[in-house]
């Protein structure tokens, strides 16, 4: 499939719809030569799956961090007509609103470095990490329903975060129209004990320092303009609650696809007509998971602040620990986009992708041990990628190969050699998440900036990381 790509410019490649007879629209990949070289042929083929679905809007987008997934690549964006298109649990992914919060500080790297050996274990115990750790909150039914419908507003009212955090989170930390009656009892049972937990796998809490300020005016405006200034990045999702919602609707939408006679190029890409009851139910349930996840990250943000207070002996306000921004990776949004010079309402499915509307803060997580970027959304994203940018570096090696190729303890030692402290519940997760298992973040960011989707504002490098 790679040989069917046509170069549009140094950063954009077109896969014409003729590449496969069932494709309704083209696919487009945002990549420079380096990124393109690393792209798996199978991942490109998976983009064509999405281009076969009803009501899909031209084109389906592959972002530079895209890699082979289940049914579609991670790092893909697709939009569907709000009336004639579909909405898909499969295209959204299982970890609904897996995402990132970035917290700024006024601390310097020197100040943090001297306390790092104390700070990382303290964060590791304050924020439950990993599959075996238990949450500290136990919600009752009413509290859970509040979280699902009111998102971070519940958190702030209950002492987790402050009202200033709310406006610094995508959707103000709460998607309207969430309906808990569309969520199964099983999902609710899974959600009640897990609010305020990080999870495992690629989820992490990272202490970072600014290595380069690349867009000084924007960095100054965002309060992140000092070299060696310390930031915190928190990556996690909607935990068992969101996983169950996605699974429940995966099964329901498989039936819906049969009922509405939708041909599926891959069974995982189940979907329902956006205007059908099944489609509406999924959207209302998905929003519950989105709100759960926004709340999850803000609860943990407050615990991170409290941990810094204990370690540094100052109030979090004195350390300027404000939310820079919080955003979603796996989500479906009803948005208005200009398509063929006409404004249309579309369901944008971002799977392993970040919103990048003009002026948006775009947080791109590198792999463990490598740089991450804070970028700014550009106008070009609206024309080229339905207002979306990449979400990370993107894997080049499967988790299984990474575990075979690296030893977790070696990865930890290598990071320690570079002054980065990594703590995880299991050494295996360090092997899985080895930096060598990922693409080069610099090439990914060069692609996204070169395509005028997002502009780099600051580059940050890790100092310490706690992983599940």
């Amino acid at each position, binding site marked *: 499939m790679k040989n069917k790509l046509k170069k549009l410019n140094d950063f954009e490649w077109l896969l014409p719809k003729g590449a496969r007879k069932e494709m309704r629209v083209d696919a487009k990949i945002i990549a420079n030569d380096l990124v393109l070289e690393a792209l798996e042929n199978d991942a490109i083929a998976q983009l064509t799956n999405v281009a076969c679905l009803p009501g899909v809007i031209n084109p389906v987008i592959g972002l530079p961090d895209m890699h082979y997934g289940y049914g579609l690549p991670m790092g893909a964006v697709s939009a569907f007509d709000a009336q004639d298109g579909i909405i898909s649990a499969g295209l959204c992914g299982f970890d609904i609103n897996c995402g990132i919060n970035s917290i700024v500080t006024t601390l310097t790297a020197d100040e943090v470095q001297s306390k790092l050996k104390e700070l990382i274990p303290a964060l590791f115990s304050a924020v439950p990490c990993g599959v075996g*750790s238990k949450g500290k909150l136990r919600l009752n039914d009413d509290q859970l329903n509040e979280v699902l419908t009111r998102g971070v507003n519940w958190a702030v009212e209950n002492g987790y975060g402050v009202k200033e955090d709310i406006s610094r989170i995508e959707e103000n930390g709460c998607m309207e129209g969430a309906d808990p009656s569309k969520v199964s009892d*099983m999902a609710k*049972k899974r959600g009640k004990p897990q609010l305020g937990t990080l999870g*495992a796998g690629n989820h992490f809490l990272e202490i970072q320092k600014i290595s380069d300020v690349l867009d000084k005016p924007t960095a100054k405006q965002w309060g992140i303009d000092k070299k060696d200034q310390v930031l915190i990045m928190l990556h996690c999702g909607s935990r068992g609650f969101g*996983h169950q919602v996605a*699974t429940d609707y995966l099964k329901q939408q498989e039936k819906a696809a049969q009922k509405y006679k939708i041909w599926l190029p891959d069974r995982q890409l189940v979907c329902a007509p956006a205007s059908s009851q099944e489609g509406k139910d999924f959207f209302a349930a998905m929003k519950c998971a989105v709100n759960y996840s926004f709340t999850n990250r803000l609860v943990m943000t407050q615990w991170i602040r409290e941990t810094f207070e204990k370690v540094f002996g100052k109030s979090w306000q004195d350390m300027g620990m404000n939310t820079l921004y919080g955003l979603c990776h796996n989500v479906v949004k009803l948005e208005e986009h200009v398509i063929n010079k006409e404004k249309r309402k579309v369901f944008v499915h971002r799977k392993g992708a970040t919103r990048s509307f003009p002026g948006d803060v775009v947080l791109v997580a590198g792999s463990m041990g490598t740089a991450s970027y804070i970028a700014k959304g550009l106008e070009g994203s609206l024309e080229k990628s339905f207002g979306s940018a990449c979400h990370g570096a993107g*894997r080049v090696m499967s988790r299984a*190969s990474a575990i075979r190729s690296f030893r977790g303890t070696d990865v930890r030692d290598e990071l320690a050699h570079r002054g980065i402290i990594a703590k995880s519940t299991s050494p295996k997760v360090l092997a899985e998440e080895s930096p060598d298992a990922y693409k080069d973040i610099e090439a990914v960011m060069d692609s996204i900036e070169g395509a005028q989707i997002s502009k780099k504002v600051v580059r940050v490098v890790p100092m310490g990381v706690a992983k599940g």
Partner: protein
Amino acid sequence: MEKYKFLDEITSDVMFEAYGKNLKEVFDNAATALFTIICHDVHGKNVIDVNVTGEDISDLMFNWLQELIARVDIEEMFFSKFEILEISETQLKAKIYGEPVSPEKGETVVKSLTYHQYKFEKTEKGFMTRVSCDI
């Protein structure tokens, strides 16, 4: 007969095949494979009764594994032993044995099974299922 094997198919996730001479065995082996992803060195001291239904045998396997993933969160337990008491094409009753979760024995979270390349087949030697998990 090999009980299960992991396949190197999905860049971001995990895929395995499980085998069995009969239905009980393939359901047991698939559950065992699943829990090698989630945890290690777990001993089955506490027992929970599980009833699962499905529209057909393939759906039953999917629901069985999905139920076990959910039970980790709900019961806050890791499981290591799976005793299938009764099984038909659409229903099973089982006792699952495990112990309370602990970070020391945790490996990773399995978020869900996926339908990507999912299979349940009758083979010459019995049954086979292919499962990919989102982790």
